[in-house]
């Protein structure tokens, strides 16, 4: 069982390390956000009395890269479905639950690695973590966020037939999750409806916790952030495994 999970995990890692273009592309985007937004909006942010924007933005961009990489890793199941490799795993004498766990852990590891790399990019761009002793907490939040959204991606991919649905998912789910999470702007004083959506958005808690651990600015609080992240991750793991177990080819 452990070997099954391990080999599926390893496959995700190898695929990630081998697709250089994906690596480079996925690092370019956060860099662009940090530089363009960080320096572009910096003065406005400062004038509005909100402090240093780069400091505010960096945890948001780390969370963004985790979100995108994680969802993408989960969604990769659609490709495996279309290109047939999924069949190879589904006719093997191993439980689908273990397959799903291995894949999800692999995807989450990749997403966490990506988050760590973006953390170092932020440092290069001028970001400084406020409290080094809280870095392990930041790492834990990154791992949970990665797990949560990989499981979400797996659940979604189990329902989709082909890549056509993927654009829909990006536009109507992933983008709203990103923009309404507090990653780019503070969530205080927003219209009621947006406020409600943001509080239902699991990434809000990942961003809040990460920002708390990296900069000391926290609004929801570590306890609630962790509680929500744990609960929603568990929920998506269950839903993801269930939907994955129902795939027919």
């Amino acid at each position, binding site marked *: 069982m452990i070997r099954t999970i391990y080999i599926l995990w390893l496959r995700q890692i190898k695929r990630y390390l081998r697709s250089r273009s994906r690596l480079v592309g996925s690092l370019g985007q956060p860099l662009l956000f940090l530089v363009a937004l960080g320096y572009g909006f910096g003065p406005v942010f400062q004038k509005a009395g909100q402090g240093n924007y780069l400091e505010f933005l960096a945890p948001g961009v780390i969370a963004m890269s985790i979100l995108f990489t994680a969802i993408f890793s989960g969604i990769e199941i659609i490709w495996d479905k279309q290109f047939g490799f999924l069949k190879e795993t589904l006719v093997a004498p*191993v439980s689908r639950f273990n397959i799903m766990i291995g894949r999800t852990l692999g995807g989450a590891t990749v997403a966490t690695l990506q988050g760590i790399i973006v953390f170092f990019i932020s440092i290069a761009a001028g970001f400084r973590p406020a409290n080094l002793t809280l870095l392990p907490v930041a790492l834990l939040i990154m791992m949970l966020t990665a797990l949560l959204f990989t499981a979400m991606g797996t659940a979604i991919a189990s329902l989709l037939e082909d890549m056509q649905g993927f654009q829909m998912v990006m536009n109507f789910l992933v983008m709203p999750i990103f923009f309404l999470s507090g990653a780019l702007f503070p969530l205080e004083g927003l219209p009621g409806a947006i406020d409600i959506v943001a509080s239902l958005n699991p990434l809000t808690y990942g961003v809040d916790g990460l920002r708390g651990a990296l900069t000391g600015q926290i609004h929801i609080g570590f306890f609630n952030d962790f509680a929500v992240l744990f609960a929603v991750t568990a929920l998506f793991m269950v839903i993801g495994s269930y939907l994955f177990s129902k795939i027919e080819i």
Partner: protein
Amino acid sequence: MSQPKNQENYAIQVQGLTKKFGSFTAVDNISFSVKRGETFAFLGPNGAGKTTTIKMLTTLLRPTSGTMLVNGYDPINDQDAVRRSFGIVFQDPSLDDELTVYENMEFHGVLYKVPDKILKQRIEELLNFVELLDRKNDLVKHFSGGMKRRLEIARGLLHTPKVLFLDEPTIGLDPQTRNHIWKYLKDLNSTEDITVLFTTHYMDEAERVADSVAIIDHGRIITGGSPAELKKTTNTNSLEEAFLSLTGKKIREEEAGSIDQMRMNRRMWSR
């Protein structure tokens, strides 16, 4: 079709197997059996229901009704025992292009719990058998269709299955490569105690390789027997003609499907 008399002697037994997709009946109440050690061909035009039948036998699809036994086990209620019993080469490619030849084999070996001690040796033997040993550290994505097919055959044999399913193993390959592949499968039949069920719409291949064939069209088995018997009953000189006289039509050509489309999309995403 003949009724199975003694379970021990049969690698595959199918009785009244039916699969409906909505109101469409893809496989319609078919029954057949395959003796142990036999090479059995499933012949029929595209859309006849060959792949659907294989998917049911290999636990990928649940039948609407009917019973099956693969190596004596029930694919519906005893999935793991069935899964350990067979190896399969799917109609569509099923390798991981981003992994090397060896890694694809190793992945399979771990999933099938081939003991660590013999895994490496068995992989090398099989790669040698399909003449890919010198390419073992190459990424599969640079391979030709024929090389991928050979690798899939080696992979399907890795866990020493009792039954090997081959769904259109030679489709889209040039004649030389096709010959090559049948040579391996013949060698295999004489060296390992294995039952082979393959589908094809190349009649000449079935005629050359199969001990026994079943002709399927519109989800129904029209007739079965050895190629010689079929030619005799239809009074024809080749299986091709026998098929034509039984179904009244030629085998249709495979059309390019959504797979090609996906391949394009994937390229756009990953480059």
